[in-house]
C-alpha cells in the first residue's frame, strides 16, 4: 500500500469493512481448521513467534528460545508486560494453559492440537521462562507456533468458559477485541487501546490505527465481487479468480495475489489399490493432465503451475526438481505398456474386461470447480474414465478416512516444509487408530527416514538436502499430480493503506492499516 504514496502518513480512526466467504462458525483459533482463522488470528491473538522473511522463527511473545540437542526440549523466554483483553496476564502459566487447551479432546481441535502432537509437558522455570518437553524430536514445532491457529488465548477465558462458549467469544492479547458475533452474518472487532507488542518485523508499534473491523460473510462469489466494486467493502478475501482482471484494471482497487507456503493444489492418487497401485498408470495419468490449460481456465492466469510437491515459496523448496509435464503420447504409451490395451464402446481403455476408471468423490457445492470437468475430459482423451461423484461433505469425509476413493484433490496450507511429513509419511496414513492426511497412502521407507531426520535438525544445509531428496523422490513415485501453487487472492480499496502481508499465511494483517479520508 505505502509504495503508491497516496498517503504515507497513517491516519487514525474509521472502521474497515471486510467481506469474507465463509463463517468458520467458531472463533476459537484452537478449535477450528478454517482458513479464515489466519486473518482472525492476527486480529484477536498474538503468537509466540513470527516467521522472518527466510521462513525462520523470530521473536514475538517469546523473546528468545533454546533447543536441546535432542530437539525434544525447548526453553522459551517470554515477553513481559503483555496482557489479554480480559485483564489476564501473559506468562509461562498462560502458555501452558494454551498448549493444554489445544490438546484437550474437549476442545475438538482439528489443527492446533495435532500440530503440537509431540508435546508432552512443561516446566515453569519462572513467570517468564518455560521449558517444554516433547515426546520425540520435532524441530518444526517452533515454526508452527507462528500459525494463526496457535495464537495465545487468555488463560482466564479458557478456564472459565466451556469450549462452545469459547467459540462464541475467544479472548486474546491482539490489537483488536471481539465486540459482536452473529453467526453466518458478521463479526465486529474494536481496537484495543493499550496494545503495544507487535512483532518487530511489523516495524511499527502501539495500538492499531483503525477503530474497528467489521467482517461480513458473503458466500456468493459474484455478489462478493460486486459489493466490493460498489464500495460496500474496503477489502475482500478469496477474490474469485475470474474477477482478478477487473480488479486490476479498476483504479479504485488494489489487487493482491500472494503465494502461500505448503502443499500445492494436487490430485492425490490412492496408491493402495488398483488402478493407481501401478506406477505406470500414475505416470500415464499425470502425463494426460494438461496443467497449463487447466490453470488458464480455472485460474484465469492468476495461478502458477506447480513444479513439484511443495509450493515455491516454501522454505527449502527445490527449484531443480521438476514434475514431468503434459505428454499425451507418453501417457498412451505407458498405458499400453501397463496392459490397458482394450477399448470399450465409449473409447475407454480396458484390461481383462475391466474398464480403466477412477472414482473421484467431490464435495457438492452450488458450483463445482471446472477443474474436474477438465481433468475428466483430458483423461478421457487417453482412454481413462474419471467418475466425478458429487457427495455431501459428510460422505466425502467418511470416504476419505475409509480410503474408499481413487482420486482426491486438495491443498494443504501451512508454514513449514514439514507439510511433506503430514502428507506423505507412512505415519500419516489414516487407519482405524489414527486419522491422518496421507491420502495417497504412499508408504516409502526412504521418504520416512529423510522426513524424520529433518525433524531433528536445525541445520539449514542439512535441511535443504533432506527436503530436496524427498521432493525428488516424490516426483519419481508420483503419488499425485501437483497442479498449481496455492495462492491467496485479495482485493483492497486504495483507501486502505498500510496492510502488511503475513509471513506464515500470506494473508493481510490489518494491525497498522489505516483508511484515508
Amino acid at each position, binding site marked *: 500500500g505505502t509504495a503508491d504514496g497516496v498517503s504515507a502518513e497513517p491516519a487514525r480512526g474509521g472502521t474497515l469493512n471486510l467481506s469474507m466467504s465463509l463463517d468458520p462458525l467458531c472463533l476459537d483459533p484452537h478449535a477450528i481448521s478454517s482458513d479464515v482463522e489466519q486473518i482472525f488470528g492476527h486480529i484477536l491473538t498474538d503468537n509466540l513467534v513470527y516467521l522472518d522473511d527466510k521462513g525462520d522463527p523470530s521473536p514475538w511473545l517469546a523473546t528468545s528460545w533454546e533447543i536441546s540437542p535432542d530437539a525434544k526440549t525447548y526453553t522459551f523466554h517470554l515477553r513481559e508486560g503483555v496482557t489479554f483483553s480480559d485483564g489476564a496476564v501473559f506468562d509461562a502459566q498462560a502458555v501452558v494453559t494454551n498448549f493444554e487447551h489445544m490438546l484437550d479432546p474437549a476442545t475438538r481441535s482439528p489443527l492446533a492440537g495435532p500440530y503440537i502432537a509431540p508435546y508432552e509437558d512443561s516446566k515453569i522455570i519462572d513467570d517468564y521462562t518455560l521449558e517444554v518437553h516433547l515426546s520425540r524430536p520435532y524441530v518444526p514445532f517452533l515454526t508452527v507456533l507462528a500459525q494463526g491457529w496457535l495464537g495465545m488465548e487468555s488463560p482466564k477465558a479458557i478456564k472459565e468458559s466451556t469450549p462452545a462458549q469459547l467459540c462464541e467469544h475467544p479472548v486474546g492479547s491482539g490489537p483488536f477485541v471481539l465486540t459482536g458475533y452473529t453467526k453466518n452474518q458478521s463479526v465486529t472487532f474494536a481496537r484495543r487501546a493499550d496494545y503495544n507488542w507487535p512483532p518487530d518485523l511489523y516495524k511499527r508499534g502501539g495500538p492499531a490505527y483503525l477503530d474497528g473491523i467489521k467482517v461480513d460473510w458473503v458466500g*456468493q*462469489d*459474484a455478489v462478493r*465481487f*460486486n459489493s466490493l466494486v460498489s464500495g460496500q467493502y474496503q477489502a475482500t478475501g478469496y477474490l*474469485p479468480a*475470474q*474477477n482478478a482482471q*477487473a480488479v486490476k484494471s479498476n483504479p479504485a482497487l488494489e489487487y493482491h495475489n500472494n503465494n502461500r507456503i505448503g502443499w500445492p493444489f494436487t490430485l492425490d492418487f490412492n496408491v493402495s489399490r488398483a488402478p493407481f497401485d501401478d506406477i505406470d498408470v500414475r505416470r500415464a495419468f499425470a502425463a494426460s493432465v494438461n496443467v497449463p490449460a487447466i490453470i*488458464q*481456465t*480455472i485460474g484465469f492466469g492468476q495461478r502458477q503451475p506447480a513444479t513439484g510437491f511443495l509450493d515455491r515459496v516454501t522454505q527449502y523448496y527445490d527449484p531443480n526438481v521438476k514434475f514431468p509435464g503434459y505428454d499425451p503420447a507418453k501417457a498412451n504409451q505407458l498405458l499400453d505398456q501397463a496392459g490397458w490395451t482394450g477399448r470399450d464402446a465409449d473409447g475407454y481403455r480396458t484390461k481383462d474386461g475391466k474398464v480403466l476408471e477412477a472414482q473421484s468423490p467431490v464435495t*457438492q*457445492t*452450488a*458450483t*463445482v470447480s*471446472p477443474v*474436474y*470437468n*477438465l481433468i*475428466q*475430459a483430458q483423461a478421457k482423451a487417453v482412454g481413462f474414465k474419471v467418475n*466425478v*461423484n*458429487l*457427495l*455431501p461433505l459428510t*460422505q466425502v469425509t467418511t470416504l476419505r478416512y475409509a480410503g474408499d476413493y481413487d482420486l482426491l484433490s486438495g491443498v494443504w496450507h501451512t508454514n513449514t516444509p514439514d507439510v511433506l511429513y503430514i502428507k506423505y509419511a507412512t505415519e500419516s496414513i489414516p487407519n482405524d487408530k489414527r486419522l491422518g492426511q496421507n491420502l495417497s497412502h504412499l508408504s516409502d521407507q526412504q521418504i520416512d527416514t529423510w522426513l524424520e531426520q529433518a525433524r531433528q535438525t536445525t541445520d539449514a544445509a542439512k535441511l535443504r538436502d533432506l527436503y530436496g531428496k524427498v521432493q525428488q523422490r516424490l516426483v519419481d513415485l508420483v503419488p499425485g499430480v501437483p497442479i498449481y501453487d496455492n495462492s491467496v487472492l485479495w482485493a483492497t480499496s486504495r483507501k486502505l493503506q498500510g496492510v502488511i502481508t503475513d509471513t506464515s499465511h500470506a494473508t493481510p494483517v490489518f494491525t497498522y492499516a489505516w483508511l484515508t479520508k
Partner: protein
Amino acid sequence: MSALTATDAALPRAGRVRLRPGLILAGLFVAAVVVAALVPQLLAPHDPLEIGADGAFLAPGGTHPLGTDESGRDVLSRMVYGARPSLVMGLGATAIAVTGGTLLGLIAGLGSRLTESVVMRLIDVVLSIPELLLALVVITLAGAGSTNAMFAVAFASIPSYARIVRAQTHIVRRSIFVEAATGLGMKRFTVIWRHVLPNAIRPVLVLSTIGIGTAISAGAALSFLGLGAEPPAAEWGDMLSNGLQYISNDWFLVAVPSVAITLTVLAITVLGREVRRRSEGRTT
C-alpha cells in the same frame, strides 16, 4: 315421436377448438424442447462436453452462436442438451409423484377409516415439511445426482396429489352415478374399476400437466443449489449457478439457461392450463 325432439336446443359439441396465438407459440416451443431432448445432435452444433480449442468466454458469433462457457464449451450445444435432463426431470418426477399420490389417495379414499386416517396423517406429516426442505433431506439421504433429485422432487409433491385423489375418490364414491351403477346390480369391484378409478384420477392427470413445469423448475432449483445434476452433464440449473460466478465476465452464461428454463416452464404451464380449461368444459 320425433316431434318431441323439437325442444332440443342446439348445444355446443365439445372438441371445437379455438386456438390463441399464445397457445400456438407455447406448443411450438414445447415441440422444440421435445426435439432437443430426443435428438439433440440435430440442433446442437457441437458436443456439449467438448472443451473447445478456441477458448473460454467467447462472445456469441462464428462457430459458437451463443459463445462458449468458462471451460470453453459451446453454450448453444449445452443449452440444447440441457433440454433432456429438464424434460426427464419434469416428466419423471411428475409420473412418480402422480403414481405414488394416486396409490396413496386411493388407499385412503377407498380403504377403511383406520387405513384412511393412517395414510392421511402420514401425508400430513410429509406435507408439514416445506417441499424444498423435504427435497434437501431426500438428497442428503440419497446423495446428489439427477436421478435422486428427480425422486426428491417427486417425493415432495406426492402428498398434494394424494390429497386430491383422496378427496376426489370421496366425491366420486358418493356421487349419484356410482350409486346408479350400484343400483344396476354391478359388483363393487366393477364399480370401482369402471367408475370410481377413472373419475378420481382425472383431475390429477389434468393437474399433472401443470405439475411438469413446476417439477422442471424445482429440479433446476436443486441443481442451482448444487444438489442436482452432476457435472459435466449439461443441465440448465447447473449452467445457471456456474454462469452466475462469471456474470461479470460474461452475462450470456446466465441469460441463456435462465431464458431456457423460464420459457420451457412457461410454455408447459400455458399448455397445462389449456388442458385444465378444456377438462372443465370451457372452450374459450
